[in-house]
């Protein structure tokens, strides 16, 4: 396996991303969207697409950069550091990976539109308050040559702004993945105001007609397409979370060096020094799990499940520690809306749940390790 050290290419990608995002999308950008009652900035997504980010996992033949999962993780981490609001993971990582598994003419055309930034996708999987794709019950009744879909999907991240949805439904014989336009008759989207100020929707399907052409991959075999897509998404999300943890931690360490009480910087107090050092240690360990997940997905995708679940579990624990310590070590100011730490805390909670929480992934790890 390639070494657990960033390649020159990855370092350059991270530097370029940081340079752009510090100007175009610091945390104040998310705050601005929230204050304006918006969840998405089309101009920002266009700029990101023009830089090739929307197509980072899209094959070159469809106009993408085809850089792979590790590179997507590098970008996601930078996005996470300043809580950039974009459909990067839903569209550029999850949908692009799913479409790549199929790679027929229609899928290739969709990939090209993802790369150019013209098409945004959202993933509609969850039906209860916890991630459990294998247990999806939403109906896709076989009717003649086609299907009729009925049911509700919740926590559809980027579902409000998406042009298309990847929908997981049950035909009675198995799970099937549908790729549907959001304006298909019978689809109703209710955007949900989320604590992290990002886009999400509850989507209701009432007698939605789908044809064989709307099926992504093979009927009753959703997982062969969805599983790699979920894994790529989970790894990138873990990286985003590590970025958010780094963002919150960076603010906290700066504050420890600045804020004075009892006549000295609070960073002189050993109680806080040790908590900060512990948190840093956790972030270092998590960084290894994430880098390993990216490498496994690129080099050994069929065996990547353990690495991906390890990364998502660790990232979940770490980012939650980072934001809790972040607020505590800031004292009162950490609780104020005017200060950015709250944005990190809320995003951490949402990402902890999305695509499987700590328990979901820790159980996967245990299962794969034989207990």
């Amino acid at each position, binding site marked *: 396996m390639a*070494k*657990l*050290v960033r390649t020159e290419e990855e370092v350059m990608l991270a530097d370029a991303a940081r340079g752009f995002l510090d100007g175009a999308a610091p945390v104040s950008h998310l705050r601005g969207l929230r204050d304006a009652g918006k969840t998405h900035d089309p101009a920002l997504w266009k700029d990101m697409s023009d830089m090739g980010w929307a197509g980072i996992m899209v094959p070159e033949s469809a106009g993408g950069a085809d850089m792979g999962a590790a590179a997507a993780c590098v970008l996601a981490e930078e996005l996470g550091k300043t809580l950039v609001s974009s459909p990067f993971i839903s569209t550029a990582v999850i949908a692009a990976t799913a479409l790549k598994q199929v790679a027929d003419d229609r899928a290739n055309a969709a990939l090209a539109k993802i790369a150019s930034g013209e098409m945004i996708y959202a993933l509609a999987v969850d039906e209860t308050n916890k991630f459990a794709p294998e247990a999806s019950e939403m109906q896709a009744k076989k009717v003649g040559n086609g299907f009729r879909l009925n049911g509700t999907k919740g926590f559809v991240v980027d579902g409000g702004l998406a042009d298309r949805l990847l929908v997981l439904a049950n035909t009675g014989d198995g799970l099937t993945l549908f790729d549907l336009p959001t304006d298909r008759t019978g689809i109703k989207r209710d955007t949900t105001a989320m604590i992290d100020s990002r886009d999400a929707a509850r989507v209701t399907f009432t007698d939605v007609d789908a044809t064989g052409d709307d099926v992504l991959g093979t009927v009753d075999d959703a997982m062969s397409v969805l599983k790699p897509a979920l894994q790529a998404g989970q790894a990138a999300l873990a990286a985003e979370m590590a970025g958010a943890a780094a963002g919150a931690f960076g603010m906290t*360490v700066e504050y*420890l*060096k600045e804020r004075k009480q009892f006549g*000295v*910087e609070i*960073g*002189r107090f*050993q109680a806080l*020094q*040790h908590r*900060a*050092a*512990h948190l*840093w*240690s*956790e972030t*270092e*360990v*998590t*960084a*290894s*799990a994430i*880098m*390993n997940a990216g490498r496994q997905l690129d080099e050994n995708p069929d065996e990547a499940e*353990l690495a991906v679940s*390890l990364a998502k*579990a*660790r990232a979940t*624990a770490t980012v939650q520690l980072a934001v809790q310590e972040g607020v505590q070590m800031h004292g009162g100011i950490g609780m104020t809306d005017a200060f950015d730490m709250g944005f990190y805390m809320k995003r951490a909670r949402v990402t902890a749940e999305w695509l499987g929480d700590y328990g979901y*992934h*820790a*159980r996967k*790890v*245990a299962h794969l*390790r*034989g*207990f």
Partner: protein
Amino acid sequence: MTQFSKDLSVFREEIRDWLEANCPEEMRDGAITERTICWGGKNWNFTSDAQKTWLDRASAAGLTVPKWPTAYGGAGLSRDQEKILQDEMGRINARPPLQSFGIWMLGPALLQFGTEEQKLEYLPPIARGEVRWCQGYSEPGAGSDLANVQSKGEDKGDHWLINGQKIWTSYADKADWIFALIRTDREAPKHKGISFILINMENEGVTTRPIQLISGSSPFCETFFDDVKTPIGNVVGEVNRGWDVAKYLLTHEREMISAGGAGLSGGGRAFGAILNDEVGGLSDPILHADAMRAEVDALSIGLTIERYKDMAESGQGVGDASAMLKYMGTELNKTRHELVMAAGGSDALEWEDGRAPHWLRTKANSIEGGTSEVMLSILSKRVLGLPG
């Protein structure tokens, strides 16, 4: 001297064949416990013929210290080759042929700071398991505040005259030589007056007194120096600059402790699976959940050890950050042995059972080689740049 290919796939074949031909069947049980370790040394009593055969064959091929240069008894392997060797040894569950403070601690320090004569004199016997070393750092008044060592060495022209006391010296009663921190300049600031001195334990005036541990064994000692003479040239690095050597050695010691007992580096069986077998299913949901957490952390810390080695190999200094590995690895190891005891229930409370001594021994992991608190202080000041 066996010659191994630089080509990694050829190397894997060669190592596989070599292990197949040379590693005795009895040494393939993967056991690494106080009782099965081969420490080597002049007075070593091999626990079996197989243990001796395995040491002789491995050291003849340079594989007790695979990465050391061949001139000093190693096999001159690269990091990638070393990984393959670990893989292949793991595959057949081979025991390490030799473990010692010489390999883990003194060797790296000599390779970095020793003169050519010192390397040629001291390294090959370590590689062959002929000389066993112990570490004379701590003193009654110098634990976490290690630079406060007071054992003193006077320059007598051709030799140092050494007087003082060390404590917590692991295996001092079994060791042939000791590397010790000795104050050679009492006027200088405390970090600037220490030398790193090598002393033969057979010299007149060296005595040891074992101290019993809570785990029942007594692997460490008080060590006394009463008018001990050691040649003036037995200083590693510069006189009065021993602190640099001491610190460098500690980074290696910390990496070793972080991975060592925990079995975190390389493959290894899932800890949860081991617990599962031992107690016939983790039926208690709390225990099960704790075991899952420990497994997530163990795999990730194992990857971090690999990542740090990769970083070191690609020239990115790791230095003070090794304190993180030590802190995280040892705290996890303690947690895991708490789980072993909880899973074992009352069965594990009998000495005969054997779990309790390991559990008790792990409590030292976050003390020896620098305490967890000291690790956190190093990280907060030197890595995070916090004041004070």
